[in-house]
């Protein structure tokens, strides 16, 4: 049984939702987002997946970003914040997610 394929397919659709939810709670920079995702086995992703995704969410106006200097002379970090459009978008995604959950529970016969 090949779970990898199924997992990568769920991931593709939900990663964006998860990142938005994460950023709704608080602002974070790219590496921080990756570290948090790595706490969850299903969500753990690489830089080459997450960074382009963040970039697209920026372009679509769901996120805004700001370069912030770090204290110890390290290079600045790019912080991502959710926008109002992003919050609206999450609400729509929430609805779909709830529907999906209900559907699955129904199919399971619960």
């Amino acid at each position, binding site marked *: 049984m090949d779970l990898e394929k199924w997992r*990568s397919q769920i991931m593709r659709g939900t990663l964006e939702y998860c990142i938005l939810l994460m950023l709704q709670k608080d602002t974070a920079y790219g590496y921080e987002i990756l570290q948090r995702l790595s706490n969850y086995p299903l969500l753990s992703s690489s*830089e080459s997946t997450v960074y382009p995704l963040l970039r697209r969410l920026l372009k679509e106006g769901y996120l805004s970003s700001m370069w912030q200097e770090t204290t110890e002379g390290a290079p600045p970090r790019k912080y991502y914040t959710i926008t109002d459009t992003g919050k609206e978008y999450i609400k729509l995604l929430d609805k779909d997610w709830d529907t999906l959950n209900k559907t699955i529970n129904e199919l399971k016969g619960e």
Partner: protein
Amino acid sequence: MDKRLEVYLEKVNKYLKGMTIDEREDIIKEIRSTMVDMQDDDLVVDQILERLGDPKDMAKAYLGDMITKTEGLSFKKVMMMIGYYSIVGISGMMIIPVLGIMSPTLILSGAVCIIAGFLKVIGEALGDDMSFIMVNIAGNSFSPFMTLIICIICGIAFIIIGVIMWKGLKYYIEKVSVGKKYIKA
């Protein structure tokens, strides 16, 4: 910063052609800051490079995501597509148009060839020799019946080659788009 990490960033930057300088700078700056964060987390250069993966794939991921998710066809998008396909391989710029034109043309020519062969025989039977249809191989012309046989053989060969090319084209496009899907994952 370690030389190998600098080389990595340079490579990504090079592969991002098609994006504006501002965008490229922004991307490189973000990856650079990530590298520093990783070093602070005690990752050694080899581990960092392993995590980031092939610089080509990294650039492809940026280009691929922008191409597939942005709507409409803008000049910028076309430039990015050129960038993307120049990584996927110049093969695409050759294979798709060549197969795309040759395959239907061969199938059509094959069909016309067979029809012409039959016309020649029918014409002969009706008393018109259909002189505009003839097979000429090294200066030898053939009887109407032989013309039909040659036409059928050539026609079928053309169609078979055309169909094989068509399948090849489909296979190629699928392969390239699987690559694109993989980038999005």
